[in-house]
């Protein structure tokens, strides 16, 4: 095996076993593509082209089939993001309850624009569509954990806490 091949992403043996069990729960392996992409995103932090090819090989799919899915769904990342992904809902219910102001506040505080990551790699701020928790508007997802009634004060406290701990989760 050449050195280049060694550097390519590979699922661990344990992960491959997990995938095998999962594939058996569906009529065809292709159905497991979304859950396996989540696993890959967890293991390799984002879905580079090499990772996508590896997923395609693992499930016996053409790379195109994987790319169609990765580019269609918003939760699959082809580029790395910050340690903390701050996804602010700015759709109807949240918009009517100050979400736009919250986004401006976060961007000012972290000194980045929407979609960008802070230079220290800690925080990325994005706007997302309705998170399905409108009763708790404004809603912010932080690494997929829901923070409801997440006003400016709440977010400031979170950022302070994280930064205080030296950036650990």
């Amino acid at each position: 095996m050449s050195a280049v091949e060694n550097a390519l992403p590979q699922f661990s043996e344990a992960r491959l076993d997990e995938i095998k069990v999962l594939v058996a729960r569906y009529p065809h392996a292709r159905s497991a593509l979304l859950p396996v992409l989540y696993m890959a995103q967890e293991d390799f932090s984002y879905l580079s082209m090499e990772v996508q090819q590896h997923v395609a090989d693992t499930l016996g799919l053409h790379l195109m089939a994987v790319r169609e899915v990765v580019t269609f769904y918003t939760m699959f990342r082809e580029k790395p993001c910050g340690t903390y992904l701050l996804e602010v809902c700015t759709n109807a219910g949240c918009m009517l309850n100050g979400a736009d102001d919250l986004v401006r506040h976060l961007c000012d505080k972290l000194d980045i624009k929407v979609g960008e990551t802070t230079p220290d790699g800690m925080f990325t701020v994005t706007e997302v569509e309705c998170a399905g928790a409108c009763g708790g508007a404004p809603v912010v997802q932080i690494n997929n954990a829901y923070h409801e009634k997440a006003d400016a004060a709440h977010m400031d406290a979170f950022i302070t806490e994280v930064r205080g701990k030296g950036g650990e989760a």
Partner: protein
Amino acid sequence: MTISSDPKKVTKICFDRIDIPNQKSLAVARENGAYEFLPTVLKKFDADKIINEVKTSGLRGRGGAGFPTGLKWSFVPRNTGKPTYLLCNADEGEPGTFKDRDIMRFDPHLLIEGMIMAGFALDVRDAYIYIRGEFLHEANVLNEAIKEAYEANLLGENILGSGFSMNLLVHRGAGAYVCGEETALIESLEGRAGRPRFKPPFPAVEGFYKCPTVVNNVETLATVPAILKHGGAWHAAIGIPNNTGCKIFSVSGHVNKPGNYEVPMGTTLRSLIENQCGGLQHGTVPKAIIPGGSSTPWILAEHYDVPLTYDDIMKAGSFLGSGAIIVMDETADVVALTRRLSHFYAHESCGQCTPCREGTGWVERVMNRVDGGSGCEGDLKVLKEASEHMAGRTICALAEGAAAPILSMLEHFPDEVRSRLKEKSS
């Protein structure tokens, strides 16, 4: 179950046990009646009886389409030699909707029990819960509950010795509103991009991998245990004829106590907002209300007393939809809201159909200018025509949903819109 067997006294069905601490654990759920009636169903009921009870109950799909559930189940052909699949639609992406989330995270066993009963009626071997990707916590809760159910022989082989076997798996989506449409959901579950399919063929006949498939909303399935325990007639006596049972309304926007509220069908909009939701944030008269999720036409204060039923809302010019009520009081900027909604639809369009793919993008860009103050009179005609010719001419109804806010804004608030235009018109 603590639900009254007297339909006149019933105010909640799905949310009956929602406030009980740790109701999500099997042990606690069982203490409160979960799975109590299941053995009877498995031993004494057959497919016809179950489907008839559900037909009699008048239950209509709670995801938004309002299609009679019993009728949908009866469309599934038997003995085709192909497996039948039951898919629970937990995609809950319609802006304003957040009811299924509470069922799943607080009383998951209610949903699971409903699915087992539905699966039994439809002769299903493999069932899936398609849950939106963002609901990671809810997916974890469901997975834990399913694990407990398997361990207690409530799922898997030979459930409770009945001879009926069914598997259940949670499958996470990955951020696409369009996957809430049943054929797009099926595409996504097949491991593809979630692009809706044209009908016919209908999923009941050719769905998941071309096999008979039933797609039902969470709330719909969660209602099944009560219907089977108390009988279809019991359910039919709650609410209003043709609009039977209770409904969970997700109320958000300019109200003091936004949240999920389950009430009998026929409760008026005013009563819900002023009683359960603590009234409007500002003033006493709503500026506009979106009654069934952002894809439904707006209704105005003149309809504040409309009973919340499929039929009455339709008479008022809109749809009950998912029951997601977005309230705008006098402080609402309707143009800004419409602009934001037009961005949503452009972002979520799957891109297949010409008018939706190109039209939603066009409308968004025009709305950006109109909201930003550089719109002109000609833009209003464009918004109207681009929206009217999307609606009804596409494979799925996303285009109709995209058209709704634009057409409502133009119809009900033309002056407010015009006040934002530039002085010169083009």
